[in-house]
């Protein structure tokens, strides 16, 4: 392994020394609890839009926990965090451009 790779590997090892096992188990527990809440809410007969909003909100929290703690993004340099996450969110948000068309089909009453 080259010197710069060793230096980076040492940095990664140093990061991991700060992560206690407790933290990982806490995140895992939180993810299971959020999943339980999602399943519970499914059977509460809520209006679909409200239900979708809550479920997607919980999914985003779960995604943030997985990316932040399990994928260690929380411990990366801020340039890495901002560039990767902003580009991903921007691309996914751009795909929403198709949704007005789906609603237009509804209003046209296409069978």
């Amino acid at each position, binding site marked *: 392994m080259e010197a710069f790779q060793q230096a980076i590997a040492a940095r990664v090892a140093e990061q991991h020394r700060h992560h206690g096992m407790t933290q990982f188990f806490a995140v895992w527990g939180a993810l299971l609890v959020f999943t339980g809440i999602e399943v519970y809410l499914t059977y509460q*007969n809520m209006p679909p839009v409200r239900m979708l909003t809550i479920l997607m909100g919980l999914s985003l929290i779960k995604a943030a926990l997985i990316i932040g703690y399990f994928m260690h993004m929380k411990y990366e340099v801020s340039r890495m965090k901002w560039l990767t996450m902003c580009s991903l969110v921007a691309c996914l948000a751009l795909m929403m451009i*198709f949704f007005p068309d789906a609603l237009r089909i509804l209003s046209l009453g296409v069978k």
Partner: protein
Amino acid sequence: MSEAALPHDLHDAPAAYEPSLFGTYSKKIGMWLFLLSDSLTFGALLYAYSYGRISTPNWPTPFHSESIVNATVMTAFLLTSSLTMVLAVRAAVFGDAKKQRLWLLATMACGMGFVLLHGREWSKLIAEGLTLPVFPKLAEHATSTEFADVAKTVPQFPATFFGLTGMHMLHVTLGVIYLGIVALRRNFIPILLVFWLAAWLGTPASSPFHYGSHILLLAAIVCSIILWLKPKIYDAADVEVAGLYWHFVDLVWMFIFPLVYLMSAKIL
């Protein structure tokens, strides 16, 4: 620092390194870039599913509590596998090879549990009539069930359901193979071939998994070539990069589960 002194200083300082733009090693950046592109693949599939749902007023909600319980257990398997994966990465960083291998095998076991439960559910849904034109023809009694009606009246539902969950199942399967290679290297190839034979001979010819199992054979061939061309002992960085892939697979399921299963639950 003068320009004349710069090359000399760098040459004499082997321990110094220029930090990369993202402050980490290139393998990890490569995996993140792959995951970002793969996010868009799954994003497109999830948006296609949502588009179909918004534009179809009679979108079905066919999943009974049995399916929801099954999908919840599958979710628990994936979440647990993410925990065991992160423990494998931790063991690798601390140089504990034995624990690293054990945690990787535990992760693979959870991933296989997920795939088996998912495969069982697919088989059940297909037998009950939720099918695609590319799947084998159904038995006579399955063509008048609730799921058969769904497939006839809203063909977008089985198309998007099987497309989305099938793509995810493929990712989990490839993830298990990836971890198997990192944990056991060459020793995993014969195990993979045994899995292929079991999947091929253990499923009826009418099942989509009968021919789908050949993905395992293809993976065994590709992995053999890679290990033959570049045999190596995988270090902590390799385990961490494999972990990133595995957590991504878990992450995607966190959106498929509520959107596809929970939002389509049959509330009695």
